[in-house]
């Protein structure tokens, strides 16, 4: 493994969701399972240091960024099937990950991943320079959505920007520059690739950039991250986290407001319901 290897997290809080709490929790899990340093990129360094006295120990580096009012927008956040709220969404920095990352080998993760095994260490032990997930599994098994298979009806493959591994290389520099170009001209690319959502979404930008890097067809530029990405949506509720065991209430088919209990053991999970994730982290951090 390269000496300069680490994890990169972007954590920019909005009015209701404390992404830094998730980043802090994830960085501790990273240390435990992967024994790698974590860099966090945030617009709230003072809040982070006030809230977590050991922030300088938990994080290898803290990178401060600032936001102007124009460069974030609003999107719906759910807390289960019955609650929905519109909040700020500050996700436009991911395309700059290549320049921001202090590591030669970087694993870029969303803060809402609960790490429960050391599978991601395999990224650093293999030879491909760019890894990303296409294969995923929704824990609520009845939902069959094409949304996460293709970004549009013309068949451009959907890739998840949730977990991306990259090495500093000429090709990856070109890729991230292209990503920034797509972001800067989002309305154009959104229209060309027939994406209905008006707001910028990293998953779509990564998918388009990979499609272009592959010569506008399916190709070999991106290889798969180890294993599969398991996820629950924001219509599900993360109920409890105890070490590697996570309990969920999963949306029940055709019964709005009702849930099915489910437990995972040793699976890393991408939890999209940020409210319930933060409640669980609060409980878990209290128990430490």
């Amino acid at each position, binding site marked *: 493994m390269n000496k300069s290897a680490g994890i990169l997290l972007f954590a920019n809080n909005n009015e209701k969701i404390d992404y830094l709490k998730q980043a802090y929790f994830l960085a501790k899990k990273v240390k435990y399972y992967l024994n790698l340093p974590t860099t966090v990129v945030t617009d709230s360094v003072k809040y982070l240091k006030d809230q977590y006295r050991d922030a300088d120990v938990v994080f290898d580096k803290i990178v401060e960024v600032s936001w102007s009012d124009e460069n974030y927008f609003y999107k719906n956040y759910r807390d289960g099937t019955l609650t929905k709220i519109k909040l700020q969404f500050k996700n436009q920095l991911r395309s700059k990950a290549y320049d921001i990352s202090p590591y030669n080998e970087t694993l870029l993760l969303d803060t809402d991943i609960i790490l429960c095994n050391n599978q991601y260490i*395999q990224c650093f032990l293999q*030879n491909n320079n760019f890894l990303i997930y296409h294969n995923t599994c929704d824990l609520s098994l009845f939902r069959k959505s094409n949304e996460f298979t293709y970004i549009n009806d013309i068949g451009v493959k959907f890739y998840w920007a949730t977990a991306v591994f990259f090495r500093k290389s000429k090709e990856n520099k070109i890729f991230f520059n292209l990503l920034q170009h797509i972001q800067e001209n989002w309305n154009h690319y959104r229209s060309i690739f027939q994406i209905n959502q008006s707001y910028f979404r990293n998953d779509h930008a990564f998918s388009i950039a990979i499609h272009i890097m592959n010569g506008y067809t399916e190709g070999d530029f991106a290889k798969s991250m180890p*294993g599969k990405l398991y996820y629950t949506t924001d219509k599900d509720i993360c109920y409890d986290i105890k070490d590697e065991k996570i309990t969920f209430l999963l949306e029940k088919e055709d019964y709005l407001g009702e849930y*099915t*209990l489910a*437990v995972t053991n*040793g699976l890393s999970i991408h939890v999209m319901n940020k409210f319930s994730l933060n409640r669980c982290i609060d409980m878990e951090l209290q128990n430490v």
Partner: protein
Amino acid sequence: MDEKLEKALAFSNYMITLHNQSKIFQEQYAQNSIYYTNGNQFTVTKELISFCDTMIRNDHIALILVDDNNIPVNVEDLKSFFKDILNVYFRATNRYLTEYSQIRKQRTVENLVNL
């Protein structure tokens, strides 16, 4: 509510949870069946095990295999590779059996998820 209907709904709830939990165990089994070596990823299947066994029986000491990412890999020490994938297979299947046996005995939703 009619008692018969209430019981049927409780049973239906139990069956949904059982089905979902079984599927999650299958997914955990699939994850545990992956063998990583020298930066390559192999899903350990009965086919892979049989193939390696056949090659060893035919006195091959090395073998070229294609991994999960369609990358050709020269396995230089086939016997050691075979031993490793067998270990992965036994660990994953034993864990799957243990977890599956536990939920099969449970008759309530709470017990299914061991709350």
